[in-house]
C-alpha cells in the first residue's frame, strides 16, 4: 500500500517559474526522501531530510518537513524543461525495520518552454 499521497497529481508550469509539490504520509518516520523519475524509468535520489530536521536545501531544491502534520513539500526554483518528470516522496518508517521505503503516488511535473 502507498504511504501517502502527493499533491497535486499533475503540475504544468513555464520555464523559470517555481514548482511546489506536497506529500502527506501516515506513520512516524525516520526520514523522508524525494526521488525523480523520467519517462517511467529508474528513480533518481534527490534529497533526504531526517525527522529532526525542518528544512534542507540542495542546489535549486528546497525541502521542508512538518512531522506534526505528517507532511513535506519540495520546491524546485527557476524550473527548466529538463525538470519535466514525475516526483515521488518516500518515507523510511519507524516501524518498517529501517530497510524499506514506502512511496507516495507521485506528482507529474511538466515544464514548458
Amino acid at each position, binding site marked *: 500500500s502507498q504511504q501517502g499521497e502527493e499533491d497535486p497529481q499533475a503540475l504544468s508550469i513555464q520555464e523559470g517559474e517555481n514548482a511546489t509539490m506536497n506529500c502527506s504520509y501516515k506513520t512516524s518516520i525516520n526520514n523522508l*526522501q524525494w526521488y525523480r523519475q523520467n519517462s517511467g524509468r*529508474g*528513480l533518481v535520489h534527490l534529497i533526504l531530510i531526517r525527522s529532526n530536521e525542518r528544512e534542507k536545501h540542495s542546489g535549486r531544491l528546497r525541502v521542508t518537513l512538518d512531522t506534526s502534520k505528517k507532511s513535506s513539500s519540495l520546491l524546485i526554483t527557476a524550473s527548466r524543461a529538463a525538470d519535466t518528470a514525475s516526483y*515521488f516522496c*518516500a518515507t523510511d518508517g519507524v516501524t518498517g525495520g*529501517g*530497510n524499506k521505503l514506502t512511496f507516495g503516488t*507521485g506528482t507529474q511535473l511538466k515544464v514548458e518552454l
Partner: protein
Amino acid sequence: DAGVTQSPTHLIKTRGQQVTLRCSPISGHKSVSWYQQVLGQGPQFIFQYYEKEERGRGNFPDRFSARQFPNYSSELNVNALLLGDSALYLCASSLVRLANYGYTFGSGTRLTVV
C-alpha cells in the same frame, strides 16, 4: 563506475509462465532491494537482501522469490505469472542495510504479461 544494472530491460511473458529478473548493484554495495511499480502508482517494496540474507519482505505472494549471490548481485523470480504482475521492476542498491542514506536505483525491467 557503473551504476545499478538490470537485465533485461523489457520482457513479454504469457500468463502462467515464470520469469527471472537480474540486478547488479554498485560495486561495494551489499544491499539490494526490489520494488514493483505498476503504471500510474509509486513503487512498492518487494524484498531486501543484505549480505546474502533476506532482511525484509513486502506484502507480495509466495510466487515472488529472490536471492542474492556472493558477488551481491541478485535475482527476482516470479512464478505463475498473472496479468496483474505487469509492471516496472526496480532494483535499488545501497552500501548499508538501512534506508537512511537513500538508494541508487537501476533503470528497471518492464515486464508485460499477456
